[in-house]
């Protein structure tokens, strides 16, 4: 196993050294595409050392986003403020604690992890010049592509299995600074240790740019052992809890499982409570 990882790593380094001008690499730099036909507002700033030539690009439909409860592209939306608050706090962590990779998970399924992840990612790219890579880490049931309406040829699984290079997996949408690594539906695979080390590798690669943040949409903590393999390599974890749905006992169990990780905090979803003023 260890041998295999070593081999993979070596190959990766070779690739990087040998084909530094090529786009297929584990180390990826993010840059704006030249053409941006349907940019959804917001100013684009920042400088990028590398350019991405073979990145896939999709135009997102705002109506579709609205139907899928993605609201942060619209600053006037009542919920955008909540996400802005979350984003500000996370940016604080990013600046002060060196957090650049954030996993978003929940105790059990269907708590709105993906919606929170997407909204948060959009909220982040819209407010500053940071690049955000949103990784659909739920290998079994990916859903980011569905919410955004992406066509997926290669997904995270393929990247982890070293079938393809990052540039073939990485997708762009008509929201500036937002990069997506979607999941591939057909490849129903759970993560194992081998994948995990690859993740580490990937994460390291993303971190080259100091103005980029990786948000991983993780599977639920409880009932799945692959989530924990992922979380080890992430700088911070956000636990999404759905009010009136998630049990307190589940929260406790999830926290117990995540005690090795840096859990930054929780997000109360579908809340009837007033917005916390913290």
């Amino acid at each position: 196993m260890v041998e295999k990882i070593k081999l993979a790593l070596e190959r990766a380094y070779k690739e990087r050294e040998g084909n530094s001008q090529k786009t297929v690499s584990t180390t990826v730099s993010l840059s704006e595409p030249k053409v941006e036909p349907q940019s959804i507002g917001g100013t684009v700033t920042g400088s990028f050392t590398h350019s991405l030539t073979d990145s896939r690009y999709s135009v997102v439909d705002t109506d579709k986003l609205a139907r899928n409860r993605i609201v942060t592209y619209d600053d006037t939306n009542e919920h955008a403020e909540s996400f802005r608050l979350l984003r500000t706090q996370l940016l604080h962590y990013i600046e002060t604690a060196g957090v650049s990779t954030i996993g978003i998970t929940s105790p059990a399924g269907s708590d709105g992890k993906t919606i929170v992840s997407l909204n948060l990612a959009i909220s982040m790219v819209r407010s500053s010049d940071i690049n955000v890579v949103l990784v659909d880490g739920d290998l079994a049931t990916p859903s980011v592509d569905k919410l955004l309406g992406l066509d997926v040829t290669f997904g995270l699984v393929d990247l982890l299995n070293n079938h393809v290079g990052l540039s073939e997996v990485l997708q762009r949408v008509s929201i500036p600074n937002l990069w997506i690594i979607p999941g591939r539906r057909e490849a129903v695979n759970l993560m194992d240790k081998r994948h995990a080390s690859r993740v580490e590798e990937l994460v390291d690669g993303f971190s080259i740019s100091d103005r980029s943040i990786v948000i991983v949409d993780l599977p639920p903590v409880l009932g799945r052992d692959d989530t924990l393999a992922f979380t080890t390599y992430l700088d911070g974890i956000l636990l999404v809890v759905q009010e009136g749905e998630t049990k307190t006992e589940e929260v406790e169990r999830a926290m117990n499982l995540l005690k090795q990780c840096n859990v930054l905090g929780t997000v109360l979803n579908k809340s009837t409570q007033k917005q916390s003023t913290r």
Partner: protein
Amino acid sequence: MEQEEGLPISDLISLLWRRKWLFLLSTFLLLLASLIVVFKIPPTYRATGQILVEQQEIPTQWVNSTVASYADERIQAIGQRVLTTSNLVSLIEKLGVYNQERYANNLSLEALAARMRQNFSVENVRASIRDRNTGQTASATVAFRISFDHPSPEVAQDVATELVNLYLAENVQSRTKAITDTRQFLESEADRLEKSLAQIEEKISVFKEENLGALPEHQSLNITAYQRTEQQIDEIDRTLDSLGERKIILEAGIDSARRFLESGRSNTDTVAEADPRQVRLETLESELSNLESRYSDEHPDVIKKRREVAALREQIATEPEYPGRVDTTIVNAVSEQGDSSLVRLNTELASAISEEDSLRVRRNDLVGKLAELDVLINKTPEVEREYKSLIRDHENTQAKYNDIRGKQNSARVSESLELEQKGERFTLLEPPLLPEIPHKPNRKKLSILALGASLFSSFGLIFGVDWMQGKVRSVRQLERASGVPMLASIGNIVTQSDVRKRSRRRLLFLSLILIFLGALAFMFNFYEIKAEDVNPAEIKRFFNSWLDKINLPVLNRG
């Protein structure tokens, strides 16, 4: 962050809002069920009779009743006597009180009597009364109410009337009995004391007889007699002394006279003829001493004899010469003279001796008497003690007897007081009337209670459901469970299709409620269905059928 533990009001309100449908449904069903129960409870009627406790009319300072118990106590006691099983059973049979239960459920008469006791109640009407003598306020029973509860107002009235009558009759009976008992007791006590008095008196008289003379009241008499006897003895002793002296003188006289005569005779042989008077004197004197020995000095015979003796001595002294023998010789004369004095002396001596003898006898008598008196005087203290105790007994018994006699008199007065109905008595103030409004149940009160209970238990239900689910409901809960701060709370993101769906469901539900209410109103108004006639099973069925059709959000949850 809220630091306080427990549920803040806002949490409760949000809980109520979250579970409003379950809450409303549960309240409605519980209320309905409890209202049906409330209106299904059969009515119970209470008939009440009031009896006045009338105080004695004649002031108690003058006449006291011999019935000593207080009115409260007596009401209790009478109650016990009235509510005997046999009394109640006879009432049950006479009035058919529990006929339905008796024949339908086959209950024993004892069980029915017990039930009757439960349905019966006595309530004392108390009033605060100021005692005229002591000035203290005390609570006294001025009247009491006898009630009987029964599903049928008529039966309730009948039974209450019977019970009231029983109470009144029992009171008179018990009072009369109390009086008779008192009187009988006093009579027997008086008899007993009379007998014991007689016994003591008998004892005293026997004792007196036995200790005659030694009784305390004879003491002073005895002492006087003792002193007098002593004096008499002293006197006799003195007389005896003088008599002794006289005897000696006389004997000396006789001696010298005899000597003189001896010498004379030797001179003359002639023996002088004795003087007849002297002989006569000697005879008289012997007779006198004889009398004196027998009688006292004052005795007439003695006096008479003395006078005779004295007269004769006078004659002999004045006429020394015996007239018949004038011409006798001097020798003869001297001899005669000596002879006569000798005789005289002898006679005197004999008389002195006889007197001494009689005195000695008398002295002995007196000494004997003195000894007797001494014994009596010494015995007196002992006798006195015994005698006094007897007297004391007598006095005590006499006092008791007098007391009982006095009480007997007042008992007699009290008896006539009771018999003439002048004492404390029970008067029927208000006979049991036919009750028109059920005494129980108080449906209005119970309904309000049912509403309160339904609301409360429904709240408990939703609270319990929430608690059982154990879901995250608040920031506080979340932070407590996770141990990390909540960074953001995101409201429910509502899409247009959500809004459409919700409004459709709301419309459907509203219309269903309207239809249901309309149907209910229709039922109650047009068919005048009384709440008592509503069958709970039907309601349940009706609801269940509707609940299936209405997609109540409460049933969809969880």
